């Protein structure tokens, strides 16, 4: 029995400091990402959610260059980016994705510049990799209070606006007719998204940021159409995937002859991807088909042009 246990959980797992930090940070970020992610998927803004991760990473490389704190860089530029996207923002999804793409392109260009200036000015080898991929095992426990604070803020904002947000997502016209300030609600949502993605991009890297934002939420929305169930399921899925991924990554150092292990981001994404695929097994008709889901914004289904 003990042998089976150590086969699953390699020695030292529960006492390892980096693992604990990763589990706490990862868990918090997973919950926030999942909650915000449910609305993101419903609003068809997966591109925006992903783009802000890259914008945040650009902020990170800027922070590295200008000697600012990483949080300022990641969260700051992410919020600015969200603001610009919202400003250019147009009602139709197609135009919105274009605007997102343009802002993203600009941000990536900035990222290129910052990283270039950073490597010529100082010695920052591996900076590109670090900024782009991040690592849950290298963030220190001192980041936890900041992360928790901002997470509470982001969740709080969503909690305040969630009803009008839901209505505005399902039908902007009806919402407007009922007096919901649709643009304002959208802006608050974008800010919460920006903060959430900025945090996740900082702590767990840009890849995981998108994965934890979209994956668990999309999986949950395929299984249930009730808001509360979806939020809960997404959060549970996100945390479970994160912890399982951390465990597998830790164990992977004991696998094979080279004892090198594989990055934790790989395992977490693999688990999330697998979970999403599982919801599509034959015999299970989707609980939320595209045309029936609460919020498929007009034109969000690919190929439809309202000419």
């Amino acid at each position, binding site marked *: 029995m003990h042998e089976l246990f150590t086969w699953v959980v390699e020695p030292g797992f529960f006492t390892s400091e980096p693992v604990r930090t990763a589990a706490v940070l990862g868990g918090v970020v997973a919950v926030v990402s999942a909650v915000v992610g449910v609305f993101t*998927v419903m609003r*068809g803004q*997966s*591109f925006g*959610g*992903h*783009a802000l991760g890259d914008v945040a990473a650009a902020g990170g490389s800027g922070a590295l260059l200008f000697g600012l704190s990483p949080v300022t860089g990641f969260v700051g530029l992410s919020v600015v980016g969200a603001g610009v996207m919202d400003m250019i923002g*147009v*009602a139709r*999804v*197609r*135009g919105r*994705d*274009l605007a*997102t*793409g*343009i802002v*993203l*392109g*600009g*941000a*990536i*260009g*900035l*990222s*290129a*510049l910052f*990283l*270039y200036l950073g490597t010529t000015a100082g010695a920052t*080898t*591996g900076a*590109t*990799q670090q900024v782009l*991929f991040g690592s849950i095992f290298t963030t220190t426990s001192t980041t936890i209070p900041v992360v928790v604070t901002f997470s509470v803020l982001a969740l709080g904002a969503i909690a305040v606006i969630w009803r009008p947000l839901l209505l505005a997502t399902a039908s902007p016209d009806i919402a407007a007719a009922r007096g919901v300030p649709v643009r304002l609600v959208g802006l608050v949502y974008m800010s919460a998204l920006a903060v959430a993605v900025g945090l996740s991009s900082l702590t767990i890297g840009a*890849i*995981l940021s*998108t*994965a934890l934002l*979209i*994956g668990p939420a*999309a999986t949950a929305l*395929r299984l249930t159409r009730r808001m509360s169930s979806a939020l809960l399921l997404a959060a549970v899925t996100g945390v479970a995937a994160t912890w399982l991924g951390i465990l597998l990554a830790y164990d992977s150092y004991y696998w094979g002859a080279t004892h*090198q292990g*594989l*990055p934790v981001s*790989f395992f*977490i*994404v*693999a688990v*999330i*991807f697998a979970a999403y695929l599982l919801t*599509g097994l034959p015999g299970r008709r*989707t609980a939320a088909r595209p045309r029936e889901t609460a919020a498929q914004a007009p034109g*969000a*289904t*690919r*190929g*439809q*042009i309202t*000419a």
Partner: protein
Amino acid sequence: MFASFMINTWAVATIVAPVAGVTGFFVVLRGSAFPAHAIPKGAFAGAAGAALLGISTLLGLAVFSLLGALGIGILGRRHGRHDVATALTLVMMLALGAAFLSRTTEYEPEIYSLLFGEVLGVSSAELLPVAILGALCIVAVTALYRPLTLASAVPGIAEARGVRSHRIEICFLIVVALATAMTVPVVGALLIFSLMIGPPAAARSLTSQPARAIALSVAIALVTVWAAIAASYLSSWPVGFFVGTLSALSYATGRSWAAWHHTHTAPAAAPALRTAPDGT
């Protein structure tokens, strides 16, 4: 900047820009901005894997970009949510890339140039494969032009005429995959999509006729890449920075012009592909 060692760069840029301009027209028309971003980014993971195995990075790029296209197309079709499919396919490929990269340490300088483009990094040996892939893309788009335009603009009528939109989607994504794989050497994986969005969007803001829009898109793309290379050469700043910035500028200019034009002229009679005031 026209020294012999730069000739290759100018040559590649002149091949890359038209392909980006033509493919990008349909990317903008179909609202496929996210796949146009996701496919090259995922392809980068393949380049990392190729480097690990010691084979040509262009091959790794091509294979993974095709995998990405298929992943997005098939997953998107099965589950009906293309943006979710794109996001998840992308992160899965990036995660694979991270796994590959973790196994090798000698890759850092190449990562940067693959991601953001490298003015000086184009060898003569790359010119021919790039040109061939580019020609393939143009041929494919020409062959698909009618069904693609129909399926993009009026899907209902296209279906009625026997155009299978799912097949067109997969074919189009494959074209995007090829286009992005071949254009990475100069522009970089992260910014090729900028070239496929900014210039075509600007072109569509300026004219609503498809043929003119495509030509204009190619022209703007050419100017963008040339200017970016020149600026990068003179300042030593990365070419990708200029591509991203200039693409955003052309988009902004197009939108502003369209808005100004809209308020200052009477509505014309309805042409084929009318651009909305919001620039789409």
